[in-house]
Structures are given as structure tokens and as C-alpha cells.
């Protein structure tokens, strides 16, 4: 079974490098063209679950302008899981496009 879309988007947001919570929120919104808007409760619930599953880990912490930030990054397992899911999705998308081309005009 495939990943849920918010999970997939969170992992994708972390693919290029570590990000803090608000960074993940912005990136997910951008990746989905504003369709998926994560709210803080949901975001941190998802980050907790992904950490428990070993797909992401907690990296650096910093305080900027009195605001506490914790950075999250993909683990090796997380990279593999995201690669598998991306392969599955692109395979399905390619299959759909190919079949649509076979359709008589």
C-alpha cells in the first residue's frame, strides 16, 4: 500500500536537506501548490510518528530571535522509503500515460 500524501510530502520536503518545523510546513504547501496545508498539531503528530518509525531523525537545535527551532532530516531508511514510493508513483503515472495514448481517438 502506498504512503499517505501528507507523509510523502513531508519526506519530500526533507529530501534536499534538514528543515525545521515551519520550513517543512512552507515546503509542503509549495510542493502541493497550496493544496495541502499542514497545521502545527498535525505536523508535529506526523513528525513524531515518522521519528518513531525511524524514517526521520532530529538534528541540530538553534534559537533565532528568541524562537526555538529543531531541525529534522531523513535517515537512510527514510531515503529508501521515499525512493521506493517515488519509483512506485512514477511507474504508475507512466503506465497511465502510456495506456491513455493507446486510446482510439
Amino acid at each position, binding site marked *: 500500500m502506498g504512503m499517505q500524501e501528507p507523509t510523502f510530502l513531508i519526506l519530500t520536503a526533507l529530501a534536499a536537506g534538514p528543515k*525545521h*518545523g*515551519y520550513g517543512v*510546513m512552507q515546503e509542503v504547501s509549495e510542493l502541493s501548490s497550496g493544496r495541502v496545508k499542514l*497545521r*502545527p*498539531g*498535525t*505536523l*508535529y*503528530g506526523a513528525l513524531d*510518528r515518522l521519528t518513531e518509525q525511524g524514517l526521520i531523525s532530529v538534528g541540530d537545535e538553534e534559537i533565532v530571535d528568541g*524562537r*526555538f*527551532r*529543531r531541525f529534522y532530516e531523513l535517515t537512510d531508511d527514510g531515503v529508501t522509503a521515499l525512493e521506493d514510493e517515488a519509483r512506485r508513483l512514477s511507474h504508475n503515472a507512466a503506465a497511465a500515460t502510456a495506456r491513455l495514448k493507446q486510446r482510439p481517438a
Partner: protein
Amino acid sequence: MTPLERRCRRLLLAYPPGYRAERGDEIVSTLLDEARPGQRYPTLRDAIDLLIHATRRRVGVTADFDAGLAIAAPWALAIAAGISAFVWWQVEPLIPTVGPAVYAAWVLAAMVARRFAVAMAVAITAIAPFAALSTSAERPPLWIVVPLIVLGLITCGGMLKPTAEQRLNIVASAAAIAVTCAPIKPALPGYYQPVLTRVGIVVAVGVLAMMTLALRRGRPYLYAALLLAVPAAWFGPIDAVNWQIGLDYVTAARFGRLAHVVTATCVVIAMLSWLSRQSGTASRASGLALGGGAGYTLFLTLTLDGAWPSASIATVTALGLLGLLLGRPSLTASLIGAATYFTLGVAVGVYSNNWSSTWPTPARTAVLVAMLSLLPCAYAAFHLLRATQLTWRHAAAMVVSLGWTGYLTVPAVMAWGPLLWVLTAVTAIAAIRRRISHEPGSIVRRIL
């Protein structure tokens, strides 16, 4: 600290303290990051989202629970509609109430199989007892109202958009349940409740089947089974009148409908909490026991003129002893324990005296309310069974909590409803197979 930050921090109080210490600063920073300039309050949608996730965290809701809710949802709807159809068809002609309005809503909800239709049926069910007050008709008894509401909430919580085939399955299962109930009902239904107990066999068998599936298909099915067991607990004991042992109500608190609902509900909640790796604390257990004892004492003082019945004295003694053995009580738990015991006691008193505040036999009511002591005892027993270390005082507390629970429930074993039998059997099998305790430090594991 800006007003916005102060309000965000107040909102975070919904999270458990340990989690707040770990994640609080980070979540507040994120809330501030996403705020528009000049914003003074967190947005309503963010606030609702935080409260939902904080509650999930406090209760220990996991992804398996969500999966279980989704599995249970269509079954909950089928059971609610099936039982409604059966009661409408077989019981209403003998015992007329305003029920048909409620039952029609459930049958309709099963055919539509959409969240709004189920929410509508829940609302109608909740309003019906009050609506009956303004008409000459009887209200449908709580033994059907409460299970229907809980089944509806399970459906609303877990149901996604069903396919045409799933909708057909729901209607077909509801019809099968309605037909199956007919031959197992008592020959002469004198009152709603004995019929519902027999009907409970159908639901209890469903719970058992779901638990059997859990052995192969994993935890979500166990959650689904336990969720369906919550409303099933309300179908009550077998024949609460005729099995009675030869004790009068003043010397012994007698097992009946209240005790059955409380016991079965506690067992189900304990199993759910066990799955979510909750374990409670000794200070809370102590607070609930001492507070409960105090709440009951207040109840007795206000409702009784003369001497206390011996069963009440024994109950207060058992709760006090339990609290003292568990050590220093938590103040919050003590206050919650006292307030809950007193409020529930009054509610039980009013209910069992035909919704009246004048009680002809207060001693009888006082002894009935003693059954609520099963609540703090269940919490204490659950915590102690989950604990990894056991001092002699805690061992003694385990004897008191399990002993008192056993004293109140085991002599009436013949009156247990079908669900209690299923839960007991499953617990026994699980304990023997050691499936219930894979945590290496658990006491249950060391004993077995």
C-alpha cells in the same frame, strides 16, 4: 512575551506535561512563525487542530487505533441499524415507546451510509428521551439509546466514503443481524433490557470474531474489536432479577445492571490502554481511591439519615485502605475522584429512582452506588498489573483492588452478560499465550 505567544502557550496546556517540556517551545515557535504581522490570537483552525492532537497524545492514540476505527466503522453502522430494525420489528409492538423515530433514522443511515446521515441518527437518538418527556409516549430505555449513540460515534469517527459494494454489505449485514436476533430473544420480553442482553450475544460474537482475526491480521483488528465492545458493554447482564443470591441489599452490594456496565467498560478501557502502552501512576491511583472514598462518604452523609449500611462501610474502608497502600495521592486525581464519585452517585440515584430526587429507600440507593467503587479499583489494578516493580505495599494494594473487584463481581458470575464472558475468555487466553505482555519488564510476564 507577546499576547499571541502567551495565548499559544496556554493552548499547549492541552498536551501532557512531559510532551510539552520536550516539544512545547518548538510548537510555539512554529505557531509564531506562521502568524501574520499584528495577529493577536492563534487561528481557530490551528487551535482545533492542536486540541485534537493534544487529546490524541494524552489518550495514547496510535496509527493502529486509527486503522482499527476504520475497520470498526462499517460494522458499527450495521450493528446499530440491525438492532434498530429488530427492536422496531419485534419489541416495539409489545412495549411501545417513541423509539420508532430513532430506529427509522438508523435504518435510513445504513442505507445512505454517509457521515451526515449517521450524525443525524445520533442526534435524533440523543434528543428522543427528552422529546418523550413532552408527549404521553414512553422514552426508549438508555440500554438502547447509549449503545446506539456510541456505535454512531464510532461510525462517524472512522468511516470514509464507502463504495457501492461496501454500502450493500452494510445493509445486508444489518438485515442479517436483525433476523439473527429474532430466535434468540426471550419468549416473553417483559421489558426492553432482557431482550437487549440476548441481542448482546450477537455483538459479543462479533467482538470475538474480530479478536480472532486480530491473531492473524494484527493490532488494528484488536482495536476494532475493543471499540465495538464499548457499546456492547451497555447491553447489560443476563436476567438481573432472578439469579439473585440470598443476600439482602443492605449487607451486600448486589451485582446488577450498573455493575455490569461499569465492569465491562473498565475492562475494555484497560485493554485499550494496555495496547496504547499507558500505565497510569501510583499517585493517581491513590488519589482516585481516596478521593472516591471521600466522594462516596459525602454522598452517604447527604442522603442517609440513620446508620450506614454495612456494604457502604466496607466500601469506604476498602477504598481508604487501597489509597493508603498506594502511597502519596495526587491532589488533582483526588479532586477528580471525589467529584466524579459524588456526581455519578447522584446520577445513579436519580436514575434508579425513576428520574426523581425523592428516594423512598435511600439505603438501597447508597448500596447500589457502592458499585462505583469498581472504577478506582480498576484503575489501581490496571496500574499495578502494568508496573515493573512491586513493593510489598503495592502487592497488598493489588490484593485489595483485585479482591474487592472480585468480591463485587465473581459471586454473580451466572449473571454476567455475553460480553463479559468474551472479555474474560480473551484475557485468559492472551495471558496464557503471553501475548498480552511482550514488554520484558512486565509483572504479568514474570508471574506467568
